[in-house]
């Protein structure tokens, strides 16, 4: 992030509650639960009052929600509605295909904040979700098997390699 010297690392769980509901629970470094439901985002932190705001004010969350719900729900038409999609895959020596799905928001207003989302995976398992924000900041979610393998001092390069690369 531009405002920070080092990347910010948090770990937790991202859960799809069905419908348009998503829950993001952070366990480390501090506990926080965010719920996206009915166009509202509610944040809860230990020892503080819950805070909520409209999804409209956080376009990258809208993007996250759209892509996640569509991907997990296998809803191709919804995905197509919100994004233009490109799909690359490369055959790997080791076995399953590695692929990258690039989603570019169609809504110009959203695109002002979120430039693109890339999802890296291998076989039928997503490994990484990278959200490229329009101001140059990058958010990387390591998913599934990679979730436990976050480096202590990650850089863009090491993370990218992790997403794309080796076992």
């Amino acid at each position, binding site marked *: 992030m531009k*405002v*920070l010297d080092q990347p910010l690392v948090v770990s937790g769980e991202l859960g799809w509650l069905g419908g348009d509901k998503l829950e993001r629970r952070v366990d480390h470094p501090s506990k926080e639960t965010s719920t996206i439901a009915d*166009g*509202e985002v509610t*944040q809860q932190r230990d020892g503080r009052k819950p805070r909520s*705001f409209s999804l409209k004010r956080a376009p990258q969350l809208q993007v996250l929600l759209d892509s996640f719900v569509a991907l997990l729900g296998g809803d191709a038409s919804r995905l197509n509605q919100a994004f233009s999609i490109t799909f690359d895959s490369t055959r790997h020596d080791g076995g399953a295909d590695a692929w990258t799905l690039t989603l570019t928001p169609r809504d110009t207003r959203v695109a002002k*904040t979120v430039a693109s989302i890339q999802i890296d995976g291998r076989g039928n398992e997503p490994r990484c979700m990278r959200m490229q924000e329009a101001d140059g900041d990058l958010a990387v979610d390591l998913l599934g098997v990679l979730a436990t393998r976050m480096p202590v001092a990650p850089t863009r390069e090491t993370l990218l390699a992790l997403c794309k690369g080796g076992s």
Partner: protein
Amino acid sequence: MPRSGRALLLTLWLLALAGLGVLVMQRLKVSTDLRDFMPAPTTPDQRLLMEQVGEGPGSRLLLLAVSGKPDAELSSLSQGLATALRKDARFSQVLNGGFDIAALDERLLPYRYLLSPTLDSEAMDKDFLADQFQQRLDDLSSPAASLLKGLLPRDPTLEVLKLAERWTPAKSPELREGVWFSAQSEALLLVQTHAAGFDPDAQSEAVAGIEKAFHALPGNPGATLAISGPGYFSVVISKQTRGQAERIGNVSTVGFILLLLLAYRSVGSLLLSALPIASAALAGIAALVLLFPQVHGITLAFGFTLLGVAQEYPIRVLSHRRAGEDAIASVRGLWPLLLTAIASACIAYLAFYASGVNGLKQLAVFTITGLLVAGFSTRYLLPHLLPMRVRDVADMPWLQRARRFVDRLPRPRWMPLLVALATVLMLAMAPGSFWQNDLAALTPLPQDLLQRDARLREALGAPDVRYLLILQAADAQGVLKLSEQLEPKVDALVARHAVDAVELPSRYLPSETLQRVRQQKLPGRTALQEAIEQATQGMPFRKDLFAPFVDDVETARSSPPLKPEVFAQSALGQRLSAMLVPREGHWLGLGTLSGVHDAAALEALASESGGAVRLLDLKQASESLVVDYRTRILHALLGATGLLVLTITFALRSLRRAWHVLAPMTLATFLVLAVERMAGVEISLFHLVALILAAGLGLHYALFFERDTGDVAEQRRTLHATLVCVLSALLVFGMLAWSTIPVLRAIGLTVSLGVAFHFCLSILMAPHVGHDDAR
């Protein structure tokens, strides 16, 4: 008079009318400010009420609701409408729930440290900053990151958001898609106009502006915009009243013309008899234009109604013409009586002048000028123009039969006593309260509009229009200080649910004293830099990220405190300037209240302050104003009645004859009151004005019936003239009585009843004339 002379006179008369018309067209300025029609306030509360009627923040609020589409589209309509209206100079404030940081002037942004209460409980030191920075770090890794990222370098303690929270209405509606929504899925907006709430013209312009802006938005088809609020209501009411009055007026004018044609069978006479009335109206307006800078719309509406009396003058002349007799000779015979009638009506209308209310003074000038012009032109101009040959109405067979019927009616001496007794009984037994003090009851709104207003007001937490908290001090700073002292007490009342929310001026701008106290708590540049350095230890923030923050704190620390007049220039400051107003040597702060549940608790709060704080009940103040108003009119009427008795007695040169004229008139007036009261009608100012008009007409009937000529034919003519007058008045005002608008109905019903009672009583109580004279 020879033909050429008549043509010349007619031309001159028409030219004079045209001249008056031009003068009126050029100079007439119609005002619609209702305050012109209210008496000069005597108590401080009444004075405030008058100011409130025009300038109160509550009365200038319009509530908007956009519905009929999915939330997302309504939200963008709401944003589009708000953006358009914010550019419109007619509106001082537009809120739709979306907080616009741009609303706080860029130059004023550093002042956030003096405006926000953060420093009252915190010091801007290492510990506080470290806690704040840690929270921001958490924010950055949270879904809210993109919201806050932009603010971070300049405002790491999120003071702007704290102010935004402080300045949004305390009880704000649900936020959906970034804007306010009601439970019924309408996007809600709150708009404050610059124009006074009860200035229907300015408000209708503002409402039209809102509708135009809405219809110019892309995507508006399919969505509906609903508007509510005092200003909108004044537009609806005046449109409704004017529309119905015009429709009824058109129908009754046609009826009136047909009636006169039927009565006199002469188009020429009809057209000529319109001249005195036209002269009266034009001369009346011309007098107003010359004497007053602005003429009130209500003066004109009432004035034309009251001028209805003058229509009788030419009717009398037409009915009393004899075959073969010169019109001038007929008029000469009538003139003493006509002059008495004119003088009496003028005296009655003089009562309006004595009331001291500007609008009523105008009414008096208009009607008295009009009556005099109508009377004298009927006497000195009209007869010269009327055709020589006329049909004597006295020969008409139906009239002879009618006169015989009237003459045969029994006239028992106990009859007036019986009527008087019945009147007193009815007045005593009538249900409900005698006076209607609530002027709004006469111009009621459709129930669905009121319900919608209540619902939107509740949803938006918009301030109550009835109560206001008034803070008084020697200067603006004094008011702000007082407001600050009041804040904790008010918060306690809100916690006790005595009131839902209170908005005080200090919520927007703290006093200079408090600003200085906060200023002193701000650290110097180096101290702050050190604190930041220590606080960010071990955090990944970029070095020098917070330089804009340090700059802003330094600006806040070294600037002079923010003054109300500077703040008022910003978009947000408009709100404050509506709440902080200078008044004759002192300043007032207006605190708006929402959802008052316990007025007594607020009253107690006010009384603790020893007069510096007052709770203004606008409804009570306006009712006390109406009571004052009525008392003045009643006093003036009492005086006028005395004068009237003297005039009539002098004119008839007999107390006994005066009694025959005045007794039926008085009795009929009270009978109207009694019947209306029995029907459950509460008497308002409009009823009083209508009663005076009816009494004026009744006086004519009594005067002419009383006239002792001993000539049977002349008595028939009197009956004819009176019947034409009564029928035309019943036609015009009877139509009004059917109106659905209470104010029109009040006037229509009162005058119609009055005309009927005056007619019957003046016939039955007239000294018996004709063949079986009973005197």
